């Protein structure tokens, strides 16, 4: 690779720490980046990558630690300081104005003008140059962004980032919305920038892609820098080892449960937002884990099953009865319950009370002669608050006033309250504290013991391994494999999720290890 170790340092972060309440999002992280280097920043979800980029951009102030850009102390008080220091970040979610043209977007905030009058000609020239540089001269400067494909938008976003004459370019999951061909073009652009001396931080979950494009890597785990080195000579296995190297602790109370007959059988099911057909079965008393990276199609599967998305092909067999599409209300009648991964946006009505959120899917126990018996509802909800250990001043409080973990308990309690027998849980432990997590695991075990069936989607591999009977893995919309949990370990799960296949020859080894 072209980077010589002696090329000058562009960025140095030393001992950066950032805490949110009790969580150490970044713990004494040091990081270096040289001119003309493409450094991959790796780590599982929640490892601290985005916090680190927010600190770098100036969006978050670190609790302690220092940063230098080209030898000068760098202590940004906001993103504008990062921008001025030559830092550009292309975020995963696009930040373009959809109704404005390519040219207007690229020049946004740095319009060429004379006394306030736009200098159209010079702007047009600059935009043309920028698009030629990113090897997409065919993109017209005149079209509105909303008419472009997602891939082309990503290219425009990058072109805009480069207008800043950046010294440091951060690409956050740049290929998650790109086709293979566009990804390859992006790699070319990244190499060209590197050759021009731009330093690139490249964040991606797709390890094979990272190996192609990056010169070096840094792995974060639980907010700590756990390893850095040159990419050459580093295998996928090594990277995965670094990413998941945490020791699995005993926070998974094992609840004994027996597995009964099949209650849900997906036959070649394909939802409107799913990339491929999926066949899976789920039995009474079974906890089926679904692993995969964000965007790999896990959530889309759950939404199709629950009827929030439409169904394009295949069918579901629920307790032996074949059904096609169904709306959520019909699914609830069939015994389904769905926990959304977006607790605040979708899962809960934040401005409604705990009592109403909890009973929202089934008011029937409290209705007599068409009237709601609110006293009864309150008393029942008070019972659930006790049972689920929800910390709130009372059932009339708005859900908004609860902490994340307690909000999640309300959302879960709703499924128990409606007596769902097939539970679809999408990231049930996201963003909640460790104690609440352990409680959630125990409840899931209890549910299985009562003979209910649980589909458990999670990005956190240890909890899947600790709680589930069987685990299925998705990679880019395709179901890679489904096996008993004992036949998986973090390595094989991670490589199935990040690469799309289970490494050869490891299976026997894995089994041995789990057996001991």
């Amino acid at each position: 690779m072209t980077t010589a170790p002696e090329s000058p340092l562009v960025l140095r972060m030393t001992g950066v720490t950032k805490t949110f309440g009790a969580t150490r999002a970044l713990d004494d992280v040091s990081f270096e980046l040289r001119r003309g280097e493409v450094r991959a920043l790796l780590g599982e979800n929640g490892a601290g990558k985005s916090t680190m980029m927010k600190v770098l951009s100036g969006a978050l102030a670190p609790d302690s630690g220092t940063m230098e850009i080209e030898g000068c102390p760098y202590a940004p008080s906001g993103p504008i300081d990062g921008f001025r220091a030559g830092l550009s970040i292309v975020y995963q979610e696009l930040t373009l104005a959809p109704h404005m043209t390519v040219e207007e977007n690229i020049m946004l905030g740095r319009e060429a003008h004379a006394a306030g009058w736009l200098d159209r000609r010079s702007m047009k020239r600059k935009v043309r140059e920028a698009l030629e540089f990113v090897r997409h001269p065919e993109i017209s400067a005149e079209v509105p962004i909303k008419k472009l494909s997602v891939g082309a938008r990503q290219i425009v976003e990058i072109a805009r980032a480069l207008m800043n004459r950046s010294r440091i370019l951060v690409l956050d999951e740049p290929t998650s919305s790109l086709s293979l061909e566009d990804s390859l073009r992006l790699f070319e652009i990244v190499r060209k920038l590197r050759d021009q001396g731009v330093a690139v931080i490249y964040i991606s979950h797709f390890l094979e892609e990272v190996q192609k494009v990056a010169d070096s890597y840094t792995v974060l785990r639980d907010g700590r820098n756990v390893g850095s080195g040159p990419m050459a000579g580093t295998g996928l296995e090594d990277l995965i080892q670094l990413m998941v190297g945490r020791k699995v602790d005993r926070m998974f109370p094992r609840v004994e449960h027996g597995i009964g007959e099949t209650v849900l059988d997906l036959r070649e099911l394909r939802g409107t937002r799913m990339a491929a057909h999926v066949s899976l079965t789920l039995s009474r008393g079974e906890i089926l884990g679904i692993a995969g990276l964000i965007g790999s199609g896990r959530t889309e599967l759950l939404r199709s099953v629950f009827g929030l998305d439409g169904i394009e092909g295949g069918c579901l067999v629920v307790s032996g009865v074949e059904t096609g599409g169904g709306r959520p209300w019909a699914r609830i009648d069939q015994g389904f319950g769905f926990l959304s991964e977006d607790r605040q946006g979708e899962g809960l009505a934040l401005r409604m009370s705990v009592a109403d959120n909890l009973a929202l899917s089934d008011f029937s126990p409290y209705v007599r002669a068409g009237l709601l018996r609110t006293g009864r509802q309150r008393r029942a909800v008070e019972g659930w608050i006790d049972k689920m250990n929800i910390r709130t001043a009372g059932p009339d409080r708005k859900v908004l006033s609860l902490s994340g973990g307690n909000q999640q308990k309300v959302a879960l309690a709703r499924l128990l309250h409606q007596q769902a027998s097939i539970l679809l849980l999408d990231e049930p432990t996201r963003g909640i504290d460790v104690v609440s997590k352990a409680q959630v695991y125990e409840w899931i075990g209890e549910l299985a013991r009562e003979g209910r069936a649980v589909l458990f989607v999670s990005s956190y591999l240890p909890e899947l391994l600790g709680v589930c009977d069987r685990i299925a893995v998705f990679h880019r919309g395709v179901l890679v494999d489904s096996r008993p949990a004992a036949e998986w370990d973090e390595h094989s799960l991670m490589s199935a999720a990040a690469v799309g296949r289970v490494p050869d020859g490891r299976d026997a080894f894995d089994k041995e290890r789990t057996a001991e």
Partner: protein
Amino acid sequence: MTKPRRDRFRKALGVLGPFAGLVLVIAIFSLIPEIQARFLRVANFTSVATQSVIVALGALGMTLVIISGGIDLSAASNIALSSVIAAYAINAGAPPLAAVVLGVLTGAAVGLANGALITRLRLIPFIVTLGMMGIARGAAKWIAGNQKIDAPMTWVNELMARSPRPSWLLVAPGVWGVILLAVLMAVVLRRTVFGRHVFAVGSNESTARLCGIRTGRVKVLIYVTGGLFCGLAGVMEFSRLTVGDPTVAIGLELDIIAAVVIGGGSLSGGEGSILGTMIGVMIMSFLRNGCTMMGWPNYIQEIIIGAIIVVAVTLDRMRHRQE
């Protein structure tokens, strides 16, 4: 202030805010010597109540619509259309009761059209009801042949009579109707599953859908109810005017919306109450009444009501921000 005390203060502001506003408005006019005597007369209060009937009926339906996160800009046009239909029916020799029912059903039909367009075509309520505002107004003018429809006097015209018969009613039957319907709607909103679903749809439609609420059906029902109340308001308008006038109530939808908002309804949905809305209606009526007695020109009333809307919403925002 300590935290729980501030909590209580804020809660009190939410419940009592509009009520305090109403008391303030009445107190101010009662203290002005020039009009004090006239303003405080019982006859004046009953006349304010009668004048409030049409906006109040419209606002009862609008409260549901606004709590669900929607809006109904066609309310006033719908009132005009319903009043024209009622007049047309009586004029054509229909029994008065049939005319009343027909007027109310017309309103409900317009509401049904609104609800169906919003849910089937997935258009936003603002656009659909803006369109319906023109359609209903145009239809009213068309049916009335672009002029007032004269209708023979019937008992319908006594619904809004200033001096009711029998006299033990004290206020016009229309006022009693509003009071009964307000109680009914408050019970529906607070004590029925449908009411909870209205709040849920307005608070977070995704959550509602996820909880198995048939959001489309709920919304259609909401707009039908809204239309039904406009139909009733239309009948009252006809009762008051004794003619079917297709150009009546222009711009009244804004008064109706303002009443709901002053009463604590949030245009982003999930909040509002019938009691608040009724207080909002009365604040506006007493302001109009007092200003007229003072001999202040119309534009002063407009400025005052405009300012009140902004103040009411600002207070409401402040209460929310601190939560």
